[in-house]
């Protein structure tokens, strides 16, 4: 979507979980092995200092994708290049890459050790990666990081439970920034917070992106938040990216029927008092995904081909791509 050499590029990334019942149950009931395709052949690239936003409902595989890209989980298949170099996704990434790719989670408790003082949480990567050589240097840098994320240097002596959710998220960001990463993966960093705390954090993250020259993969199920943060937006449905476009195109002229549905039903103050007409239908299970296009059971444009053949992404004129037979055939 952008001419610049991408900082991150991912191709054919998949992650399968074995969710079979215990062996005894399987033998007794003759039930087959059950595989869950959490992420199913995802491709994307992100140019340096840009933000790719990723939206999709609960369970569509956003966090699994994030973990694979962050090197916290081995994918079942796929390739990734970082700063032009191929990464071996089957192995734990080397130090230089671990240092350059960091992640911020939805629940800051997941990334902050409750028994560590803030100084230890934020200072640990500084010492581990040899960025600070002495404890005095470490303290100084922790104080600077805390100031950068809008906390006070004195907060270094406190424990996570002494902070509110929004402040804990700031600490998690300071820790992620400590190793001077190039790429930050943010998995629903504000979803657990109210709008006012969210606004402050989003402003902070945009400011830091400029100051630190960061590239973001920004995950959220809130479309307005993604619109505020991202340059390009990918829409995920049942483990696949069904549409990916520069954000203005995506929000003004969504192409995939699922994206259209999302953009139409987003609740807002403008819809005051009239609940948007919900589209019937269920999100199918990733254990037994529908054949063909995974969206076909809910799609008003589905035909026989949609029920049988999986649509491949086709490029769109304004940049980006969409995986939909109806769009490819010019039916919609």
């Amino acid at each position: 979507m952008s001419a610049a050499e991408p900082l991150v590029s991912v191709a054919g990334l998949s992650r399968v979980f074995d969710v079979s019942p215990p062996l005894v149950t399987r033998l007794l009931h003759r039930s087959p092995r059950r595989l869950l395709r959490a992420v199913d052949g995802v491709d994307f690239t992100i140019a340096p200092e840009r933000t790719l936003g990723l939206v999709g409902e609960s369970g569509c595989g956003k966090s699994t994708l994030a973990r694979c890209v962050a090197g916290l989980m081995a994918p079942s298949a796929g390739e990734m290049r970082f700063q032009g170099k191929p990464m071996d996704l089957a192995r734990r990434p080397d130090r230089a890459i671990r240092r350059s790719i960091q992640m911020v989670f939805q629940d800051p408790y997941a990334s902050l050790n409750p028994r560590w003082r803030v100084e230890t949480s934020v200072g640990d990567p500084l010492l581990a990666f040899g960025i600070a050589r002495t404890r005095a240097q470490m303290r100084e840098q922790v104080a600077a990081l805390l100031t950068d994320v809008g906390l006070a240097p004195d907060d270094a002596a406190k424990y996570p439970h002494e902070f509110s959710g929004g402040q804990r998220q700031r600490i998690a960001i300071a820790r992620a920034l400590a190793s001077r990463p190039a790429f930050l993966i943010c998995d629903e960093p504000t979803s657990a917070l109210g709008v006012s705390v969210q606004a402050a954090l989003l402003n902070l993250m945009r400011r830091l992106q400029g100051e630190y020259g960061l590239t973001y993969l920004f995950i959220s199920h809130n479309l307005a938040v993604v619109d505020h943060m991202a340059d390009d937006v990918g829409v995920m449905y049942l483990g696949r990216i069904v549409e990916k476009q520069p954000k203005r195109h995506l929000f003004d002229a969504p192409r995939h029927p699922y994206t259209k549905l999302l953009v139409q039903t987003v609740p807002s103050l403008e819809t005051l008092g009239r609940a948007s007409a919900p589209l019937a239908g269920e999100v199918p299970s990733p254990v037994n995904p529908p054949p063909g296009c995974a969206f076909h059971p809910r799609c008003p444009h589905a035909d026989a081909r949609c029920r049988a053949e999986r649509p491949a992404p086709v490029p769109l004129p304004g940049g980006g791509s969409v995986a939909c037979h109806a769009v490819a055939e010019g039916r919609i």
Partner: protein
Amino acid sequence: MTALLDIRALRVELPGSPPLAVLDDVTLSVNPGEILGVVGESGAGKSVTGAAVLGLLTSPLRQVAGEIRFDGTRIDILPEARMRRLRGSEIAMVFQDPLTALNPVFTVGQQLIQTIREHSPMGRTAAHARAVALLREVGISDPEARLDAYPHEFSGGMRQRVVIALALAGEPRLIIADEPTTALDVSIQAQIIALLVGLARSRGVGVLLITHDMGVIAEAADRVAVLYAGRVAEIGPVAEVLLHPRHPYTRGLVGAIPRIGAGLEVLPQIPGAMPRLDALPEGCAFNPRCPLADARCRAERPVPRLLGAVQVACFHAEARQTDAAQIERPDA
């Protein structure tokens, strides 16, 4: 009309020396067939309000003052055995995470049928028919077949609907829904909202809808209560409160909502953060963050006043919107 739920001057404390007020003088009511939204940032006391109504305050929290009436009868002083009978029959609850409300080892049908028979003695066949009817009512297609499925075979939105079906099994007149759509994608969220609105309209069920999503409030609620630091800042008809917010905190909240296509560099944010329970300021709890605060705000606690149809706890609620515009200046 007697209110279905009537909370008067409720005070809930965290014991200690001194005890800390988690809810302070909370007064609100829900009429039959009405959806009252409760918003506020994390820690404002939304869930504690719901828990108090259900008689489920977790230790060490205690109600120390006020009254809670259901259909005219005090329920905050009922013995636990009677309260338990009320819960799940006349008053039902729906929480954020549907998985915790469902038992993974029983099928959806087994759980529904058991709950139905707990509430009204009937034979298996009758209970089975009722279970099918309930699943159909919450919009699950092919309910006969789905009865034999286990919760993990359902998507998040379907599970939440099963939880609502379970809640409906006792024919409740009041539903306490604590963040029922937070984990769901907007398309499924719209279905759940439509379901709750339908229950209120068609069955006259009252709903206390707790959420930090203002979009959900705008679509679903008839009235809304804005909680700040355990106190009701503003309460009134949803269109009044969201389109003409009078309390400076509500004005800040509404301004901080990200909107699709707004194209802002920086989101408006309220400076500072909600004070911790042990650091509440004198006077109005919002005064340290408020652009309109004066000496009186810092000394005296504003008593809620009726302005038109809205009750506001602020000395300067009549100030013109433009005077408060400076609230929207971010402190980045």
